């Protein structure tokens, strides 16, 4: 957008990274930035220079250009051994510690890799039920969050820095008054809480302050799932689906592949039935009904893009067809009747092995319908289990709007906010902020000096998850102890410590609080040796046998009647339906200051550093809009300005507004990126709102997009076929690698590293890309540089549309370096900076690179990336957070995927030290390790029994652009779609 009111304020506020030079020169603090980017040049501008000095500086710059090869050349450094070496620390060897991360209160187990005591990389915890060894993009990026220098680290009072002791004094004083009044006026606002310790602490507070009111609020909650269960079963429940057991899956705008608690596990289970060459006729079939494309929709064999009311109608029709609702529903007229009937027939056929999964965004009635269908299909106990909600709903207070009412009525005089940034995420019709300002004492525990911190009296910086002790429950109830990976910097405190302060502990100790809770619990459970129990829980990353018990429960007897009484949500005929959706990576905005996540291409739009109003091609055409137009969205009298992005696969007349952008206050990375869709979101319609009017404004928006062209244009990049065709003729691809060459083939007698990527399994979640960025020190380049096509991700996930753009099918294709045996890049390098090693890996020697960029030009896969500027040096992450095993690249050198050469080489050294060969699976690349669906397999292709050899023996194996005779070591397994024969090929167009 052209005139950004916040821009000048941002410019004043401090360093902004990743700007373009032209902008730098305009801004008042040019020198500050110039000093960072071009030290010698800044010095030049700073002093009143004489000619001699100028020459010196110029000469120095020239000299540096030549000498400063990769990072510092040989600069002698001091070495400081420990005074007393801590046990277990070996310089040059990494260690792993288990902990867990939480989102929406649900935990996912992780292992944190430490190098010389520094946490450096996040891996999934294979023992944790929600991880199984995988991580999400957000999980991978949490390490950057930990090192983010812009997280708050000082207590502030009314915006001014205050000592921690002043805060404790204030709390102690208030506590005296509160004790006297038995807690009248004390309110607690939390997010979803699953932490047993925190729940216990809240319980204790309630005993101390019986009048305490506890409110719960999440910007993006799972309330509708629970409400749906309430409708269907008469009580709130969490559902635990088993996608490995399902033959036919119906995903109703489902988040099971991207954000539902346990999604990593679901993705693993789902993929286990999708790798066609392995499961053959047991391949599952996935249908998707959705208003805005999701990863599940992208992976679906048949997908219908429907507006929310149409989804409800479709669900009713399905319910009628499978016997879960009145049979006249099955006969109701409506669009897509044929398709829905075919789906219903397929579901019926798969009785006992069918599963309907409804996304968190859907109306409670849709959830109830889903439950009814599942019940009718016999899913319970087969593909679906029910447990008590992992996060118990609060017993008294209620929601944020209740709190706002209470505050407005003056009933709250002390407010403790543990929830994440309610000022930013509160419903637009709530006026939470004004009510908040009336509270005599408000305390906010938040990671950033954000919008909420600005509106409260006391802001206490919250510790990062890797800085504090806590515990958290996973989607199935399993508890993990969260242990700190490093000491918090500055005055950061955890929620446990803050609440303990209110319980009268003057110097609360997070570790003691958590440990005491568990000691008590262990006593109750009579585990015997607590130390062993505790150590085991920490080491394994889970507390054993804490998964919730499955409940055998029947739907309410009057479910059918209840469903009948539900009519579709009241919709207005005029205008568009607005869909509010969490951003794939920023979620509700809490990760807005994370450069990795900002710069990760959104799986479907491929946008970075931006959100946009997503419109279907047909709707955009009807409104006379195209991508990059700027519109004003009017919804119930509220206005927002947003750029338009035309997204194939979007339901017509629906506009999706991703949440989490337009942050006014966070770190400098996230401020002012995109527009704030929360400004349109109301209590009544948190997910869908109808009646939006779009008005085109002048001007165009400049997006930073990672991928411009979305179609393969008939090229054989992604090979695919149908399951039926594959079963009939497994070699239907007819792909035979060319072996002809003018020159004799180069032999690789030892290890031959190779990779296979299964396109059926890839769900486009970008965990691998983030993992690669974390492992390989890829810098963040910033919005401007991305818009100039200079992003630095070594691995990218191409998203292609197939078929008509109105109802496309989607394909995800991860593209790392192909490690061609006949590498075209190597031949054109004039200085041997990229050559082969004896394992057949195309190595990139940064320190030898002079930067001709010919290699990138000559790479048909375009997987090479160039340091046009000194991106690493201008990256604000602290030095100690870079992976010491990987060179940090300097300006002017090329870089690319190395098959994680630091991992292969370390493993080879260990094996060589022991005079043995490498075992299969001993080396796992970062992308492979993070992948929830095991789409990526890496290993020695000379070992006939290795996993990668087995994958490559698949009849579906092919090399992308193999006709160029590049002989890539990275090959793909072709995409197989399991089509319903009754529906034909949706790529040929959906006609209702």
């Amino acid at each position: 957008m052209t005139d950004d009111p916040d821009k000048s304020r941002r410019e004043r506020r401090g360093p902004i990274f990743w700007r373009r030079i032209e902008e730098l020169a305009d801004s008042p603090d040019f020198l500050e930035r110039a000093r960072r980017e071009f030290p010698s040049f800044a010095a030049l501008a700073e002093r009143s220079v004489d000619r001699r000095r100028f020459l010196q500086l110029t000469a120095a710059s020239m000299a540096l250009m030549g000498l400063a090869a990769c990072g510092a050349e040989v600069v002698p450094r001091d070495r400081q051994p420990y005074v007393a070496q801590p046990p277990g620390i070996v310089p040059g060897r990494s260690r792993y510690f288990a902990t867990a991360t939480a989102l929406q209160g649900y935990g996912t187990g992780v292992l944190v890799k430490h190098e010389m005591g520094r946490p450096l990389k996040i891996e999934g915890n294979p023992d944790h039920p929600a991880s199984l060894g995988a991580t999400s993009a957000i999980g991978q990026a949490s390490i950057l969050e930990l090192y983010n220098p812009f997280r708050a680290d000082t207590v502030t009072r009314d915006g001014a820095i205050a000592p921690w002791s002043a805060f404790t004094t204030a709390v102690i004083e208030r506590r005296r008054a509160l004790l006297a009044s038995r807690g009248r006026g004390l309110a607690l606002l939390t997010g979803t809480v699953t932490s047993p310790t925190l729940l216990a602490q809240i319980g204790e507070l309630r005993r101390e302050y019986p009048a305490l009111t506890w409110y719960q609020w999440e910007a993006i909650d799972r309330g509708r799932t629970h409400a749906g269960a309430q409708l269907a079963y008469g009580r709130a429940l969490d559902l635990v689906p088993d996608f490995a057991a399902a033959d036919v899956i119906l995903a109703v705008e489902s988040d099971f592949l991207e954000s539902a608690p346990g999604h990593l596990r679901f993705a693993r289970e789902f993929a286990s039935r999708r790798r066609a060459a392995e499961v053959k006729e047991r391949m599952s079939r996935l249908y998707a009904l959705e208003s805005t494309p999701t990863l599940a929709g992208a992976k679906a064999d048949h997908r219908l893009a429907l507006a929310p009311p149409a989804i409800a109608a479709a669900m009713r029709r399905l319910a009628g067809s499978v016997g879960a609702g009145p049979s006249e529903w099955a006969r109701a007229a409506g669009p897509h009747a044929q398709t829905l009937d075919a789906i219903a027939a397929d579901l019926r056929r798969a009785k006992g092995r069918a599963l309907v999964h409804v996304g968190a965004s859907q109306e409670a009635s849709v959830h109830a319908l889903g439950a009814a269908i599942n019940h009718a299909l016999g899913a319970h106990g087969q593909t679906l289990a029910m447990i008590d909600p992992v996060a118990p709903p609060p017993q008294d207070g209620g929601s944020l709007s209740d709190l706002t009412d209470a505050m407005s009525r003056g009933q709250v005089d002390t407010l403790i906010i543990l929830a994440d940034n309610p000022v930013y995420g509160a419903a637009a019709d709530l006026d939470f902020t004004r009510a908040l300002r009336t509270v005599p004492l408000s305390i906010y525990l938040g990671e950033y000096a954000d919008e909420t911190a600005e509106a409260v009296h006391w802001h206490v910086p919250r510790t990062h998850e890797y800085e504090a002790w806590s515990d958290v429950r996973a989607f199935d109830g399993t508890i993990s102890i969260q242990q700190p990976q490093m000491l918090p910097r500055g005055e950061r405190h955890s929620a446990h410590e803050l609440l303990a302060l209110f319980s009268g502990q003057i110097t609360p100790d997070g570790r003691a609080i958590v440990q005491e809770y568990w000691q008590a619990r262990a006593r109750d459970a009579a585990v015997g040796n607590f130390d062993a129990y505790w150590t085991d829980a920490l080491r394994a990353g889970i507390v054993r046998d804490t998964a919730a018990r499955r409940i055998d429960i029947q739907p309410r007897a009057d479910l059918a009647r209840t469903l009948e009484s539900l009519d579709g949500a009241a919709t207005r005929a005029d205008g568009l339906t607005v869909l509010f959706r969490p951003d794939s990576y920023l979620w509700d905005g809490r990760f807005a200051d994370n450069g990795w996540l900002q710069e990760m291409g959104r799986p479907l739009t491929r946008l970075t550093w931006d959100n946009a109003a997503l419109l279907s091609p047909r709707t955009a055409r009807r409104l006379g809009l195209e991508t990059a137009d700027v519109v004003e969205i009017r919804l119930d009298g509220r206005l927002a300005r947003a750029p338009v992005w035309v997204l194939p696969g979007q339901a017509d007349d629906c506009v999706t507004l991703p949440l989490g952008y337009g942050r006014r206050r966070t770190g400098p990375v996230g401020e002012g990126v995109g527009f704030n869709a929360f400004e349109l979101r109301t209590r009544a319609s948190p997910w869908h709102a109808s009646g939006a009017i779009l008005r085109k404004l002048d001007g165009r928006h400049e997006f930073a997009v990672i991928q411009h062209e979305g179609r393969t244009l008939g090229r054989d990049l992604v090979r695919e076929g149908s399951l039926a065709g594959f079963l009939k003729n497994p070699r239907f691809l007819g792909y035979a690698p060319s072996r002809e060459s003018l020159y004799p083939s180069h032999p690789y007698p030892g290890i031959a590293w190779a990779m296979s990527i299964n396109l059926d399994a890839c769900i486009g979640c970008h965990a691998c890309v983030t993992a690669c960025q974390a492992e390989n020190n890829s810098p963040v380049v910033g919005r401007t540089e991305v818009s100039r096509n200079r992003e630095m991700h070594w691995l990218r996930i191409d998203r292609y549309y197939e078929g008509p753009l109105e109802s496309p099918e989607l394909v995800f294709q991860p593209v790392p370096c192909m490690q061609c045996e006949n590498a075209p890049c190597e031949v054109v390098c004039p200085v041997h900076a990229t050559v082969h090693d004896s394992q057949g890996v195309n190595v990139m020697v940064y320190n030898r690179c002079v930067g001709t960029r010919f290699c990138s030009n000559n790479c048909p896969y375009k997987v090479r990336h160039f340091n046009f500027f000194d991106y690493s040096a201008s990256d604000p992450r602290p030095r100690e957070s870079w992976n010491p095993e990987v060179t940090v690249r300097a300006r002017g050198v090329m870089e690319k995927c190395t098959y994680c050469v630091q991992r292969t080489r370390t493993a080879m050294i260990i094996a060589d030290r022991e005079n043995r060969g490498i075992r299969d699976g001993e080396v796992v690349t970062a992308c492979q390790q993070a992948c929830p669906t095991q789409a990526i397999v890496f290993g020695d292709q000379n070992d006939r029994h290795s996993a990668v050899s087995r994958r490559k023996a698949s009849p579906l194996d092919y090399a992308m652009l193999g006709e160029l005779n590049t002989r890539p070591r990275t090959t793909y397994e072709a995409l197989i779609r399991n089509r319903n024969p009754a529906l034909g090929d949706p790529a040929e167009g959906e006609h209702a």
Partner: protein
Amino acid sequence: MLGVSHQFRRTEGMAAIFSRRANLFVQIGLVLFVLGAVCFLLLIWGVPLMNYNDQVSFTPRQPVPFSHKHHVSGLGIDCRYCHDSVEYASNAGMPPTETCMTCHSQVWTNAAILEPVRRSLAERKPLRWRSVYTLPDYVFFDHSIHIAKGVGCTECHGPIGDMPLTYKATTLYMSWCLACHRNPAPHLRPLQAVFDPHWHRTAATPSGKELMALYHIHPQTLSDCSVCHR
């Protein structure tokens, strides 16, 4: 054609422009030019090879004038007593102050020279040793594999056992690394001799070739770029 003159002035020759001495100057100039060119070539090839550049025998001033000669050759302390991770990690490990104090809490307890060590222990502040061997950030050297393959400490660290003060014994140039990586045989020794600072090849020593076979060393893979550059 303005200003063009067809008039020729008859002159008495042009000897006035250049005297006979000019030829001498030209000859001197030519010789200097050739010499200059040769010097330039010598310079660009020679300067990097000069001691000024490679800093061999560089002996930085250390907080404590630690003598390997005294501790290794004199007292017979094994390398691994202090550099304890050398066999199983990339980094050989610098001894923590406590390692020094295992002995020096008993012997030379009042030596002035050891004051920094005692202060380090007392103040829990690490000793700051000056690095003698420094590799650029893009070179990843692993001690353990060299030890495991029979490359003795002295191959790179020189006569470390006889150094009263530690100095840089080798150039650490890439060409120096490559010389051994391309032809490792002459630099190998039996495993039991790896930590022996005074070891020398005898008639009984297995030949480099035999050791290479024993250690499974394949020199054709050793000069892969990715062996050192990641």
